[in-house]
């Protein structure tokens, strides 16, 4: 096995399927970082499940040598939860976009955060709907002119980091597709985190909302002295939206959903482990 492990390179996770993304799309950077991180952790492809929804990001499972589930719009988190529930040993990574995750699938986020299943949820945030050719999304800036906002977006963008800290996610981080080395490190930390790890990755859409010029000047490192265990400080940091801080905002170790399930099963079985026929007799 040890030779097989050493053979795992970023290249070995690539499939024959070529990404459908536009040249220059931020998602290429995210995918490369993901390959790098998987290789670094030497995750066995047979034990990896990549779950996605719909949108440009939704095609990701097809580009990673593993098991995958390209589900429907917004439903990454329920499907990923089902996979983990069935087999907690699997390494599960959910991927989605800002529309998939925060708009149509937004109702699932608080519940994933509070349940704390042990998987990673990676959002490729381009602040637009790329696959439907450019409409405003939940993270678009006010004034953004797009197909459905010809006079400019009037809605306040939501703050993914603050939202996830508020909902009780146990790992909240932010990365940028243009910094693939740092992003790979961040993804590795998210995968290594025991619990629900949320990563918002700014990943510009070169075709419909080209932010390659406006993003980099706003980028900032999370201060070295920031304590990710301090939830209030993490929240305060998340509210500083004039800059885009990269790194881990918040991290805590809390019992995972799977640990709770295992405890429940142990508790129930300690009390009784009846055969089905014995349960029948409760009804006579």
């Amino acid at each position: 096995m040890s030779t097989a492990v050493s053979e795992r390179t970023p290249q070995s996770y690539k499939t024959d399927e070529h990404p459908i993304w536009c040249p220059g799309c931020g998602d290429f950077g995210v995918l490369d970082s993901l390959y790098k991180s998987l290789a670094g952790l030497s995750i066995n492809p047979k034990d990896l499940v990549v779950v996605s929804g719909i949108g440009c990001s939704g095609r990701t499972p097809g580009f990673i040598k593993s098991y995958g589930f390209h589900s429907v719009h917004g439903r990454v988190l329920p499907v990923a939860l089902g996979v983990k529930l069935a087999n907690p040993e699997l390494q599960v990574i959910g991927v989605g976009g800002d529309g998939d995750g925060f708009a149509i699938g937004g109702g699932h986020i608080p519940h994933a955060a509070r349940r704390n299943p042990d998987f990673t949820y990676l959002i490729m945030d381009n602040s637009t709907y790329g696959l439907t050719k450019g409409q405003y999304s939940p993270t678009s800036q006010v004034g953004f002119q797009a197909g459905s906002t010809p006079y400019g977006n009037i809605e306040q963008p939501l703050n993914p980091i603050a939202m996830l800290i508020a909902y009780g996610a146990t790992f909240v981080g932010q990365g940028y597709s243009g910094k693939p080395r740092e992003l790979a490190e961040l993804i590795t930390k998210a995968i290594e985190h025991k619990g629900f790890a949320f990563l918002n990755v700014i990943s510009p859409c070169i075709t419909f909302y080209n932010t390659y010029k406006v993003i980099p000047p706003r980028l900032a490192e999370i201060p070295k002295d920031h304590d990710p265990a301090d939830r209030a400080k993490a929240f305060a940091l998340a509210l500083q939206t004039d800059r885009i801080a990269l790194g881990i905002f918040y991290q805590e170790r809390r019992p995972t959903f799977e640990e709770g399930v295992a405890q429940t099963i142990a508790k129930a079985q300690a009390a009784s482990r009846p055969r089905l026929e014995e349960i029948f007799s409760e009804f006579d």
Partner: protein
Amino acid sequence: MIDYVFRVGGEGGEGVISTGEMLTVALARSGFEIYTFRTYPAEIKGGHANYQVRASGKLLLSYGAAVDVLIAFNEEAYQKHIADVRPGGVVLYDADSFSPPATDSLIFYSVPMTSLATEKIGVKLTKNIVALGVCAQLFDIPLETFEVLLKEKFGRKGEMVVQKNLLALRVGADYIKQQTKRDLIRLGKGPRETKELILSGNEALALGAMAAGCRIYAGYPITPATDIMEFLAKELPKHGGYVVQTEDEISAVGVVLGASFAGKKAMTATSGPGFSLMTEMMGLAVASEIPAVIIDVQRVGPSTGMPTKTEQGDLYLACYGGHGNCPRIVMALTSVEDCFYGIIRAFNIAEQFQMPVVVLSDASLGHRKATVPVFDLARVPVVERRKPTPEELVSYKRYRYTPDHISPMSIPGMEGGGYVAEGLEHDEGGYPAASNHENHLRATKKRYGKFVQVESIANDLVRTYGDPHPEIGIISWGATEGVIREAVQMALDKGYSVGALHPKILYPQPLAKLRAFIEGPKAIIIPEVNYSGQFATLLRKRFAYDFVQLNKCIGLPFTPKEIFDKIEEVATHVHRGQRTHATKL
């Protein structure tokens, strides 16, 4: 032959349902066959509730017609149900609550249930136990049966509570001893010697799911399906499984599909409003070929409708809900016993054909209790999905075209089995082929190729009864089976030539059996507990036949008499050479 109908009525929250349930179990344990019906308000406290128990020495197929004994806790119960009490029937009422007008056609027993409970026991809530004591004494149901039941029911609340309830039982029995018995109703010991189970449709269904190997349940609370989730939440962990209560019904099916994809048998149960939300995920299960079982315990719709009342209104949604050409299997459960075996069959079909199976139950079936023979785990052998062999895992293609259209399904963790479960149109390997026109046709044919094979199973799961060459035919589905069997028997006894056909799988339809059946009768009635005649509509698409609809749409199941009356009407028309018209009850 003993065959009595008891009905308990009163305000929701004052023990109507528990009185009915204790009477049910006591009579079942005394050796009678039982068939119950309950209706309760959508509110938790207040509103009218009633519970009907039919007990007989013979197998029961319906909740019966006329009431033999009405136990009225208040005047509203009396007013609502008095018309259903047969001439010479018994009315047992709480004299502290009201006094019914005197009439010679009924036998009244006046019992001050509330004051006996308050003065002799000191707990007003025990008045329903007082009523049970009266019933035990008056109708010769062994008092010990109730005593054992009360100990079981209240044992964990402490000895004091048990003693108070036992006292209430005796107070009721002693009180009625002072009155002369004026009726002839005596039950004593029933003829059945063997042990049977007494349980509800929902309970049988949950047990059936466990027998089928279901280990993961995801669901959202909704009347009248919630008790399936609650039962499994208690029992599944004992078998290494788990119930997750999701944030909505979309998520529930999402968890089911994720779990099934990862190799575990999983299901969800809901009612109409939740089922509407699930159509999105049903399409995904069809496209990605993932086994899934979705239970719909139907209630009155549209929208929120009448949450606690029954209807067969979701058949269109079950068969056609969702976009695209989307074949799924639709089954309907017919009896409490069938809830157990039917769910095992549903899992088997889902596993064998790797597609979603929708199982229709309804409020009347889910919440009624019946005595059934102890379940036989060997009767419906459990089927598992086809998994790839080591040879098939070399250059594995998840959606490989095969002669029977079923492709071996790998499970995460299998070396060489990696693939993407796809909602996009895809090729054999699971690769998106969203612009390949010919591939779409081939993939669609693959999915329908699986679907049409279920037709032969559907033909095996058809029940026919009555005259094998009937003049009047009946085609029915779901929980109406028992009541129709009873009506058919009534009609046969009166000399009518009637026969019925009752399929368990409704989509795909058992066409061979239907075709053969339809050729014979001069008229065919399709009774349904809905307004528009959903099954009749589906059948008209297949057969150019002028079916006679009988529709009931008041949130209650049919009575045998309603079916019988229609048979008689149609028979009369047929004999006169007239056309018969549809009836809406």
